C-alpha cells in the first residue's frame, strides 16, 4: 500500500498536467465546486483525450493507457482533488466496454475512436414506462425490415442527457414470442434518425437531466446490431459488471465532504467557524470513516480485476452503500448551510458560489439509490446470488 518512487513521480506528473491543462473557466468552477455544464464536461473530455487519458481502463489497442492499478487510483485521486468535471459514463464506461467485448471489428472501428475522442455523445435506452426494475419486460419493438435492418416503434424513458446525445444504445424486443429475456437485442441508433423525438423532464433538482425518448418508424441498419440477434439481455448483464465500481461514487462523495468542510470553514457560529466545533467534526468524521472503508472495497475490487480474478463478493456492496453515502454527504452539506440551504437558483451573491448548487444536488441525489438498479433490487440480487437465500 505504500507508493514506489515511480508512483510518487507519476502523481507529480498527473498533478502538474492537470494544473496546466485545465482551462481557467473550469478551474474557477472547480475552485468553488460549481456545477459543470454539459459543454464543460465535453471540453474536459476532449482535453483528456488529446493527452491520451480519457479511458485509462480500456485495452491499450483501443486507446487505453496500460497503467497498473495503482496508477489508475492515483490518476482518479488527482482528478478528484482538482475537482475536475466527471466525464459522462455512457460512452466511456458503458457502451465502450460492451463494444470492446462483444462488437465486430467494423463496429469497433466505427464507434470506439469517436467515443474516446469525445466527438460522439451517447445515452442509454433501457428503461421504459412499464419496464423499470423489471427491465426484461421492455416493449420497444424492433421489427425486421425487408433489407434486414430494423424498424423501431415505442418509447424509452428516464434517458439521461438524451437531449445532448448523438447516439443511443438500446435494448429492443426482436422476438415477442419467446421467454421475455430471450427476445431482446442490443442496438445502436443514431439520435438524428427521422422519427426519434426527445422531451426533457425537469428533475426535482431543478435541472433537465433525463428525457422521454420516442421512436416512430425509426430505421436502424442491420450493421448496428451488436452481437447476435436476441442475445441482448446477455450483453446487458455483462455490462452491469463494468458499472459496479463506477456507481459507488466514492470520488463524488469525497469531493462533497471536502466541499462541506469548506462551507463549514466559512460559516461562523457564535463567531467561530463551524468546522472547529467538535460535535460537527465528529458528524462529518462518521460519514468519512464509512467512505474510507468503502474506498478500500473499491481498491480491492479493482486490484482483483487487474489480476484477472472475478470480482469478490465485496464488490456487490459498492452501489448499495456508495449511494447511501452520497446522500449522507449532501445531508451534511445542507445541514452546514443552515438557512442558506433554502436557496434555489438565486443570483450570485445570495449565497456563496460554493453553496449555489447544493440544494439542487441534494434533491437530485435521491436518484442515486434508484438508478443503475435500485437499491432494493441490489438487495434482492445479493440475497439470492451471494447469500443464497431462497426464492
Amino acid at each position, binding site marked *: 500500500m505504500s507508493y514506489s518512487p515511480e508512483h510518487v513521480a507519476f502523481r507529480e506528473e498527473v498533478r502538474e498536467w492537470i494544473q496546466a491543462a485545465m482551462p481557467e473557466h473550469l478551474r474557477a468552477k472547480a475552485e468553488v465546486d460549481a456545477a459543470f455544464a454539459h459543454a464543460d464536461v465535453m471540453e474536459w473530455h476532449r482535453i483528456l483525450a488529446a493527452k491520451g487519458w480519457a479511458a485509462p481502463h480500456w485495452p491499450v489497442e483501443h486507446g487505453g493507457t496500460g497503467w497498473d*492499478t495503482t496508477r489508475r487510483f492515483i490518476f482518479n485521486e488527482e482528478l478528484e482533488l482538482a475537482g475536475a468535471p466527471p466525464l459522462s459514463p455512457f460512452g466511456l464506461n458503458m457502451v465502450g466496454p460492451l463494444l470492446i467485448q462483444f462488437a465486430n471489428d467494423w463496429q469497433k472501428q466505427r464507434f470506439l475512436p469517436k467515443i474516446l475522442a469525445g466527438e460522439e455523445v451517447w445515452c442509454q435506452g433501457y428503461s421504459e414506462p412499464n419496464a423499470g426494475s423489471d427491465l426484461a419486460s421492455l416493449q420497444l419493438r424492433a421489427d425486421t425490415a425487408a433489407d434486414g435492418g430494423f424498424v423501431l416503434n415505442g418509447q424509452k424513458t428516464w434517458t439521461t442527457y438524451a437531449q445532448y446525445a448523438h447516439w443511443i444504445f438500446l435494448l429492443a424486443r426482436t422476438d415477442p414470442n419467446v421467454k421475455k429475456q430471450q427476445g431482446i437485442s442490443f442496438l445502436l441508433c443514431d439520435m438524428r434518425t427521422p422519427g426519434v423525438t426527445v422531451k426533457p423532464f425537469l428533475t426535482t433538482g431543478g435541472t433537465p437531466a433525463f428525457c422521454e425518448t420516442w421512436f416512430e418508424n425509426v430505421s436502424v441498419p442491420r450493421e448496428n446490431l451488436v452481437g447476435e440477434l436476441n442475445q441482448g439481455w446477455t450483453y446487458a448483464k455483462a455490462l452491469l459488471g463494468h458499472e459496479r465500481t463506477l456507481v459507488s461514487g466514492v470520488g463524488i462523495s469525497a469531493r462533497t465532504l471536502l466541499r462541506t468542510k469548506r462551507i463549514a470553514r466559512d460559516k461562523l457560529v457564535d463567531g467561530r467557524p463551524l468546522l472547529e466545533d467538535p460535535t460537527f467534526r465528529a458528524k462529518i468524521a462518521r460519514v468519512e470513516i464509512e467512505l474510507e472503508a468503502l474506498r478500500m472495497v473499491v481498491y480491492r475490487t479493482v486490484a482483483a480485476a487487474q489480476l484477472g480474478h472475478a470480482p469478490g463478493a465485496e464488490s456487490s*456492496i459498492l452501489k448499495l452503500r456508495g449511494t447511501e453515502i452520497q446522500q449522507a454527504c449532501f445531508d451534511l452539506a445542507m445541514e452546514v448551510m443552515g438557512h442558506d440551504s433554502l436557496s434555489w437558483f438565486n443570483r450570485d451573491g445570495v449565497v456563496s458560489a460554493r453553496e449555489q448548487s447544493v440544494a439542487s444536488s441534494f434533491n437530485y441525489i435521491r436518484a442515486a439509490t434508484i438508478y443503475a438498479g435500485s437499491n432494493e433490487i441490489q*438487495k434482492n440480487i445479493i440475497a439470492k446470488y451471494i*447469500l443464497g437465500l431462497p426464492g
Partner: protein
Amino acid sequence: MDFELSADEKLLVETVQSFTKKDSPVERFRRLRGTELGWERATWKQMGELGWLGVSFPESAGGAGLGFVAAGLVLEQLGATLVPEPFLSSVVLAGTPLAAAGTPEQHERFLAPLIAGDTALALAHVEAQSRHDSASVSTRATRAGAAWRLTGRKRWVLDGHGADHLLVSARTGGSERERDGVSLFVVDAAQPGVRLERVDCMDGHKAALVELDGVEVDATRLVGPEGGGAAILDLALDHAAAGACAEGAGLLARALDMTREYLMQRKQFGAAIGSFQALQHRAVDMFVEVELCKSAALLAMIKVSDPSGAERMRAVSAAKAQLARGGAFVVRQATQLHGGIGVTDEHDIGLYFKRHQVLAALFGDFEHHVARYASLPSFDAHV
C-alpha cells in the same frame, strides 16, 4: 497495490482454519469459559510450536518477521470460532510494546518464552480514572537505590489472571495526566507485593484487578526510555485496536453465516423465513457491514505499521469505529433474526454478540475513535 495474500500468509490462514475447525470449535470456548483459567496452556504451547505467537514480531526480536497483517490473519480466524487463548491480549497488546521498545536482553527474557508458548504476558495500564487516555496514570514508580518500587492499582488487565509477566505503566515523573513521565516495567505476576484478583468479563473472557504494593524491580525491568512510555502505550493500543478489528471481522463473518443458515432452516408460515423479503434485505444490510468491517480492518492491519503516526491513527480509528457501529448492527440483527433462541445462553449467537460488544469497548470505543479521527491533521487536509 496488491491485496493478494502471499504464499506464507495463505498457508498460515489454512493452518489456523484447520485448527479452529478440528481442535477449537465454539464448543471448546463454551466448555472453557466456566474454568478457572478460561483457556489451556497446552494449546498455547501448541500455538507457539506452530509459530503463530511470533508471526508478526521482527526477526531481531525472535519473531518470524511477517508483519502485522499476519497476526491479523491469525486473529481473524481465531475470532471465527471464539478461540479463548490470549492472542490479542498477550501477543498483540502486551507483546507489541515489549517488541518495539525492549532491549535484546528483555526480548530474550520475556518475549522469547511468550513466542514459544511457555508463558503469557499481560498489559496492566487501565486505571479507575484513565478511560482511554494512556497518559492518565497514577500508579507510581519511585527509585529505591538502583531499583524501582511500584505502588498502585490497575483494573481490567486482560487475561492478567493467567499471565506470568505483567507489563505495568507507572509514573516516574510528571503529574497525573501528563504524557511525559509514564514508564513501563515488567513485573513477575508471582512477585511479592503483587496481588491479582480474577474478574469475569461479560463475554466469558477473564481479566484481573491488580494491586501493586511496593513491588520492587531492578533497572533491567524498565522497558523503553524512562518517562517515555505513553507513546509506546499508544502504539500498543493501536495494534490491539487493529487486532480487535481483525478478530471482529472473523467473528462478524461467522455470525452472518450462522444467521444465513438459520434463515434457510427455520420455517414459519409454511416457508423458510429466509424467503421473506424483509429478512433478506436485513441480511444484506448485515453483509454490507461485514464487508466494510473486513476492508477497514485490512487497511488498519496494513497501516498500523506505518512510520507516520498520523496514517496509523487514521486507519485504526476508522476501522475501530466501523467495527463498533457496523459490527453492532450485525450482531444485533443476528440476534433479532434468530428470534427467542437468540437470547438463550444455549445458542452460540449470543456468544458472538457479547464478544463483539467487548471488542467494541476495548482500546477506544466508537466515540473515542471518531473524535480522534476528526482531530487528525488529515481531516483538515485540502480544506
